């Protein structure tokens, strides 16, 4: 094209740098997190103790790991309401499986390992079910996962007869360190969250797959016209979510050693709230894992701070939590208003 009309190229040389002003509004959740840490420290001196922070981080790790999967699902334009119920069912089946296998394999690490693999398999299958119903049969994600949520939950209640499904005490002691153990002073769940978050952010931003998720969430037609297999990517996100649920569940089970009908209740809303607070766009096309982690921490800290004070009547806990969530999202309004 060199002999065409010479149009002067006004483009500056390609720098690779972010312009900070583009991203100032996207640091909103981080500011909220820091503010909460300050408030907490002022309210109660034991708030910033390593024990308390460790507790909160460990508790948050469960929702956090689930929310990593949720980030992918939402970025690709989908939604999964079944994660809480899925977790309960996976927990129940996993415990029952381990209890049964313990007869032959004993109550040592071998059984626990087999139980973990079983949980991962269950999570994959559950995610596959969601994914297929949504893509092949073209049913709205909201409806499908609302349905599977009900199915998973009631299956668990049926299996448990309304009570708890408990791990045999021998298995319980073996598996206990998964939740309560530490490596160099950091609890295993926190390590797991950190590792998975780093991997997740890399996959989302630096791999083709992550890019395709964002493309599909942004405009599925454009993705299709760009030779991307939209259905396959979508199914993959739901399977990824199922795996995340499985990992979170296998960390959760050793905590109380049981699955109860109240296991996982409202976890899906917490995960989705964390993802949105963190800056991922609910309608799809843009997602960030680090934001999700910040969102999870914000939710965990709010709960912790409210437990540490008697200022407000405990009846108002819900209102305060809701108000802070709205504030955190408002701070991102700059981005959302584009």
């Amino acid at each position, binding site marked *: 094209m060199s002999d065409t009309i010479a149009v002067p*190229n006004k483009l500056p040389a390609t720098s690779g740098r972010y312009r900070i002003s583009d991203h100032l509004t996207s640091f909103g959740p981080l500011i909220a997190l820091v503010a909460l840490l300050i408030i907490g420290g002022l309210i109660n001196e034991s708030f910033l103790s390593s024990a308390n922070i460790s507790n909160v981080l460990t508790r948050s790790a469960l929702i956090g790991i689930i929310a990593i999967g949720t980030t992918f699902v939402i970025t690709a334009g989908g939604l999964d309401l079944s994660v809480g119920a899925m977790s309960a069912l996976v927990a129940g089946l996993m415990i029952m499986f381990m209890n049964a296998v313990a007869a032959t394999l004993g109550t040592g690490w071998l059984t626990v390992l087999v139980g973990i693999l079983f949980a991962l398999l269950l999570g994959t299958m559950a995610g596959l079910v969601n994914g297929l119903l949504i893509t092949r049969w073209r049913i709205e994600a909201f409806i499908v996962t609302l349905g599977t949520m009900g199915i998973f939950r009631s299956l668990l209640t049926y299996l448990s007869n309304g009570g708890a499904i408990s791990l045999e005490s021998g298995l319980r002691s073996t598996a206990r360190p998964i939740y309560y153990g530490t490596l160099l002073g950091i609890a295993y769940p926190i390590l797991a969250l950190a590792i998975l978050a780093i991997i997740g952010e890399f996959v989302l931003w630096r791999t083709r797959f992550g890019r395709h998720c964002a493309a599909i969430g942004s405009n599925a037609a454009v993705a299709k016209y760009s030779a991307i297999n939209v259905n396959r990517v979508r199914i993959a996100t739901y399977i990824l979510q199922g795996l995340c649920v499985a990992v979170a569940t296998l960390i959760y089970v050793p905590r109380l050693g049981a699955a109860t009908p109240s296991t996982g209740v409202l976890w899906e809303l917490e995960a989705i709230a964390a993802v949105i607070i963190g800056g991922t766009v609910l309608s799809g096309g843009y997602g960030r894992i680090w934001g999700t982690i910040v969102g999870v921490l914000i939710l965990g800290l709010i709960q912790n701070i409210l437990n540490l004070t008697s200022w407000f009547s405990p009846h108002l806990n819900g209102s305060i939590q809701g108000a802070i969530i709205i504030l955190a999202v408002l701070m991102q309004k700059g981005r959302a208003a584009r």
Partner: protein
Amino acid sequence: MCPTTIPSRIGRTLSTLAQSPAQVERQGMTLLRTNSIRKSFGPVEVLKEIDFAVSPGEVTALVGENGAGKSTLMKIIAGYEQPSSGHLLVDGSDIFFETNVDAEASGIVLVHQEFCLIPHLTVAENIFLGYEPTRRRALDYAAMEQRAALLLEELGSTIHPRMLLSKLAVSDWQMIEIAKALSRRPRLLIMDEPTAVLGHHETDRLFERVDRFRQDGGAVIFTSHKLDEVKRLADQTAILRDGRIVTVAPTGSLTEDEMASLMVGRPLSDLYPPKHPKPDQTSVLSVRELEVPGYVERASFDLRKGEILGFSGLVGSGRTELFEGLFGLRPARCKSFAYQGKGRPLPTPREAYQMGMAYLTEDRKGRGLLFEKSLGENLTLLKGALTGGTVIDIKAERAELDHAITTYEIRAPRPSARVGTLSGGNQQKLLIAKTLLAAPDVIVFDEPTRGIDIGTKQQIYRLIQSLAAAGKTCVVISSEMQEIIGLSHRVMIMRQGRIVGEVAGDTMTEDEIVRYAVGLKEAPIHV
């Protein structure tokens, strides 16, 4: 850019008080004047010292290359943007439009280039969006539909007011946008590329309507890249270049060539580059009795290596759907399909690209580019999906982007900018760059120069010719007769979903093509 303000009660009251054109008695007095209007976006000065005037009963054409500032100027006049300095005067007095609602209250209405319509609503609901007539606090659907029908009839359109927008074609959307603007009873109607998606028939009807509007005392400002239309419709022509008005003159005093030269700032060489002779007759692609349910039936043709095959026809004749079907983007079936001499079933989109076929969509906003993402991400989306590894090589991507920006001369504020901020022409160039990055052998260009200025058009024509010279095969779908004739070795014409004729050499004239397109002649290909 869609208006996000919904008029308040006050706005609605004011707009009903706005004078209808026929009531304007101040014939000959200036309706609108711009006084030293300047506009900058940050450090970039987009408009410099704009001075011109529009009178009632006068049609003004704004002409200029992409990025010359036409859209910005129109947005300022219509209240969507505010000038950085300078004034607007309406009926001789200074006026400030905070939003488009204020401008509409003064009788100034803009018809957008990118549609602001809601697919889930009906035609009537869209036309009266925000200004819905009510009866006893409930929506008055009867009145809405009646008035909508009237407006559409005046435009010569046969669209039924109760149809859902999602079921209508792009050209229909344009007519509805115009009807919507006219429903506000404007004194000054501003239209941004109104004929870009219209076929000849609809363009004629629109021009008739504009004529009546002008006779009633209304004023019109419009932009178009089709200089022949400018000659036909406009009383005066204002030419913009690099944010400045270079000339304002009665249209009769300028030839098309003069207009084009003034736009570009230098004399124009021939628009269409010389055609490269076809090297051989080997069949690159052949299809028999392709059927796309609802759109195309029994289409058969051959593509020969190195040729440029044109596809002409009225809007809605099925050309886009034919190739979408061929590329697996739509359900389709055929009797036989062969690529590079080897028979095979119709490919999926992925297979098509992998084989070396590429389809450049006519809908760059809806199906071509991710408007919310950056240039780099869009550029490599297709190629990456085909041959990219798992991990993205950021450095390589930046290099590709730099190369593309230079090769195709894409103008963007910065490389990390969102595609939505680029002008239409630059978006189209990016889409072409994206498609060609996958190094295809067969490229189908669907309306490649829609909404693009002369300078860029020429760039694209040269590109297509050089592709053919390099042994690639091109298909060009276009509604611009001159363009198709200027580019193609031969042209196939479609009508109502069937291929009804083929012309080449001596028979490749506008007259012949139109005959086939409207059904006066028919010579279906028997292969």
